[in-house]
């Protein structure tokens, strides 16, 4: 048996490393970090999140604070989404784009207070993003950026029972926190930002706290959720969950050769707010229509689609998959990828080249899974 593994040493560890070891996690390299890919098994963890709840360590994610009276003007210039729409205690999904409109990273922006924001970026991109953000900030006089990634931890409690499990641990009325909003507050006596966000297609919360406190928070939540069937869940389940939910993963659906309009993230690109990095090119792409589009595919015969597999119609290659896996909840073998725009038609039959064998598949609407 041969599996491709690439180990890059030394790997960084989150403050929950000892918890993962004690829980019997399988640890793998991910974006320079040693992270749990699974504990009990990807399928059981996936199922727990869809039907009960799962707890994820995502402390490897990066957090930058942006402060100063030019913060808003700076962020409006930095990202395609409209940051001026953000109320305090509200979060927003957006991207960092290059002048050519392609994506350096995707991120969340939290509006903490007036002239005070937090950017949450992907782990593998922390250094690249921080350098980029700092460079762009030089055009603005009153803005300061701090990389707080090492002192900030993040765990995600996701699933239909997330609220039920978390509520006894906090005085904050969790049902009052609406989707993509957050409040500061104590959970199990630990100061957190309690954010109603996630990356699984389920209801849930993401909790930001000091790295020094996160082990206690993690343990308390696991204990509190045990009677409801809460499981610790790893990156393996995180990937199948986000794939079913049709959510982009940087390095797969998004990269520096891809713009947000191709990725069907046009809803996050706001031209009316004024110019921003990449806006000229993106406006052109919007007017002319993207050359290729992100689609969902579902295999019609046996096999598992994976990122990198070419897509065909007849003998003509029309694109390539960026992600693929068996979808445990949708019970289909599914993938996401890019095809030439003319072929991006729901219902179209195409072929996936699975290691030399062309297997029929159908283009289907995203997301594959939507909670009721």
């Amino acid at each position, binding site marked *: *048996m*041969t*599996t491709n593994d690439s180990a890059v040493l030394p790997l960084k560890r989150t403050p929950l490393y000892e918890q993962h070891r004690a829980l019997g996690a*399988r640890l793998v390299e991910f974006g320079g970090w040693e992270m749990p*890919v*699974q504990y009990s*098994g*990807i*399928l059981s963890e*996936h199922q727990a999140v869809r039907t009960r709840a799962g707890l994820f360590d995502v402390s490897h994610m990066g957090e930058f604070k942006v402060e100063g009276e030019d913060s808003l003007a700076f962020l409006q210039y930095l990202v395609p989404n409209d940051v001026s729409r953000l109320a305090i205690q509200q979060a927003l999904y957006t991207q960092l784009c290059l002048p050519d409109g392609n994506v350096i990273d995707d991120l969340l922006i939290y509006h903490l207070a007036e002239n005070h924001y937090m950017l949450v970026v992907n782990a593998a991109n922390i250094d690249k993003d921080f350098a980029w953000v700092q460079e762009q900030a030089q055009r603005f006089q009153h803005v300061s950026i701090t990389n707080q990634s090492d002192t900030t931890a993040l765990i995600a409690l996701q699933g239909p029972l997330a609220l039920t499990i978390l509520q006894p641990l906090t005085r904050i009325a969790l049902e009052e926190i609406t989707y993509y909003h957050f409040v500061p507050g104590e959970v199990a006596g630990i100061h957190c930002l309690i954010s109603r966000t996630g990356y699984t297609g389920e209801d849930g919360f993401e909790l930001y706290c000091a790295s020094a406190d996160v082990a206690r928070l993690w343990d308390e939540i696991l204990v509190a959720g045990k009677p409801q069937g809460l499981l610790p869940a790893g990156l*393996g389940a995180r*990937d*199948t969950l986000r794939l079913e939910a049709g959510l982009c993963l940087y390095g797969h659906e998004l990269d520096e050769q891809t713009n947000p309009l191709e990725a069907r993230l046009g809803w996050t690109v706001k031209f009316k707010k004024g110019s921003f990095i990449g806006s000229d090119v993106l406006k052109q792409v919007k007017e002319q229509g993207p050359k290729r589009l992100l689609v969902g595919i579902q295999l019609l015969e*046996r*096999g*598992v689609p*994976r990122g990198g597999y070419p897509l065909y119609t007849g003998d003509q290659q029309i694109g390539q998959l960026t992600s693929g*896996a*068996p979808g*445990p909840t949708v019970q289909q073998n599914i993938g996401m990828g890019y095809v030439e725009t003319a072929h991006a038609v729901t219902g179209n039959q195409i072929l996936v080249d699975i*290691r030399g064998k062309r297997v029929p598949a159908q283009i289907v609407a995203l997301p594959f899974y939507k909670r009721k």
Partner: protein
Amino acid sequence: MASLNHPGDLKYSKTDEWVRVEGDEVVIGITDYAQDQLGDIVYVELPWESGENIAFEGKFGDIESVKATSELMSPLSGDVIGSNEELKEHPEYINDYPYEKGWMVRLKLSDPSQLDNLLNADQYLEYLQGR
């Protein structure tokens, strides 16, 4: 590793297949270590008809877990007597019963001396620990 099972009556390859010798025939599957590394197995492709020849260190199939695709490498050459049809419907047998219901192919050996290159259970365990 302590919880994994590698029976003493089998032979093992460094590519994580096990071999059960039955006269001049062998049964091949993947080890408990291999299935544990792969995680939940969802699909196995063993595209063999009886009588076809599998080459030494040749690919004899593909195995898909939720997270990855791997190739199966044959530690021996021989003619296919049969492959485990039940795995089409029950790929999870490889996770649950790697040495019994999770077997993959049965071969008639073309060169029994190839068996000498395989490891015994202790050697395999030692090999895994050094990996």
